[in-house]
């Protein structure tokens, strides 16, 4: 029997329209929307479309991306009104009979095109002491042991990649930017419920604030936005309960 080498059929392409919110601080007074028609495969991601635009149509298009595989958290943006990672959003999951709207995440100062100033976001992150606070050496002098059950307690919030999709989807954060924001609380949760950590009361005290967990209105935008599937609103609720209890 003759063995034919299998030739994969050509993957069909189609043209999608992307409408991107551009802003060049050296030229523009206000951001403006610009259309691009891009030839794409259904298996392409929004990031591929942005690359095609930058490499083939307009080299001035500016956006952050690093690993391009959903781990580094660089390319969170607002895609059709929802905060998503461009590298995890497949074209086939969007309705391409309509234009795809892409803009920078909201609530943080816009620097250029899809890039925002992340410093306020990281300031909030830093202010919850996102590191192990443990006084002295471990008991047997070797390591701080933890059971699988104790580890599972905060497993969900270890997944955060600090992409700011949650914080910049929060309507309370949009208002004046004073709220700590979901990401900072998620990272506080990661240590508050860690059995090896001894600084949970310090963190609970920091978050027991007008701009802390009490400003959460449980709108669930953050849970919907999280590209890592973290139950963000649940984590915030657990921190609220821990504050009421006075301990984790």
């Amino acid at each position: 029997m003759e063995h034919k080498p299998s030739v994969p059929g050509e993957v069909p392409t189609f043209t999608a329209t992307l409408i991107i919110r551009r802003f060049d601080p050296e030229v523009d007074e206000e951001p403006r929307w610009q259309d691009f028609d891009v030839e794409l495969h259904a298996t392409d991601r929004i990031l591929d479309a942005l690359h095609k635009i930058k490499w083939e149509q307009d080299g001035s298009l500016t956006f952050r991306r690093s690993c391009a595989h959903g781990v580094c958290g660089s390319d969170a943006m607002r895609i059709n009104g929802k905060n998503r990672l461009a590298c995890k959003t497949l074209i086939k999951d969007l309705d391409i009979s309509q234009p795809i709207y892409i803009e920078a995440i909201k609530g943080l100062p816009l620097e250029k095109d899809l890039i925002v100033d992340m410093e306020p976001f990281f300031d909030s992150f830093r202010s919850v002491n996102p590191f192990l606070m443990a006084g002295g050496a471990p008991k047997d002098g070797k390591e701080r042991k933890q059971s699988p059950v104790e580890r599972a307690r905060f497993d969900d919030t270890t997944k955060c990649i600090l992409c700011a999709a949650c914080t910049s989807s929060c309507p309370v954060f949009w208002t004046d930017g004073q709220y700590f924001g979901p990401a900072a609380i998620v990272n506080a949760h990661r240590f508050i419920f860690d059995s090896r950590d001894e600084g949970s009361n310090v963190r609970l005290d920091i978050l027991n604030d007008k701009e802390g967990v009490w400003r959460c209105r449980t709108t669930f935008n953050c849970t919907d936005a999280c590209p890592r599937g973290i139950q963000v609103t649940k984590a915030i609720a657990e921190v609220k309960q821990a504050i009421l209890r006075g301990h984790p």
Partner: protein
Amino acid sequence: MSTIDAPRSPLVSPQRRRKRGINWEKWGWIYMRASGVVLVVLIFGHLFVNLFAGEGVKAIDFAFVAGKLADPFWVAWDTLLLWLALIHGANGMRTIVNDYANNRLVRYILLGAIALSTIVLLTLGTLVIYTFDPCPAGSPADLLPSFCPVP
């Protein structure tokens, strides 16, 4: 050999430093949940008794209200309903104003208006519940409801 201390960040940045005292945000949050649970019972009890029980909505008239406010049980029920619901609503509006009114002056005006209207409504409502008299003495007979004793 020297060791590097664990990294430290300021406990709270200066603009976030909270003065000690009653934590109103926390108690406000707790109040909303606690009053919410009680209000579910109070409101549905109120609606059931007024609109459904007995003859239903047709029974409501001046005499029906007068009868309810003559009963200490309903006086207590209505007082609780009035205070819990009004403060619950006012606190919710305060929250919305704090979230969305960025201008200091506008915020203070709105918060002041909410506080003032809440106080006025609580005072008037409480006065009505406790001073309501369907048959005030010395009123002309043609202004009194039919169930009042003829002087």
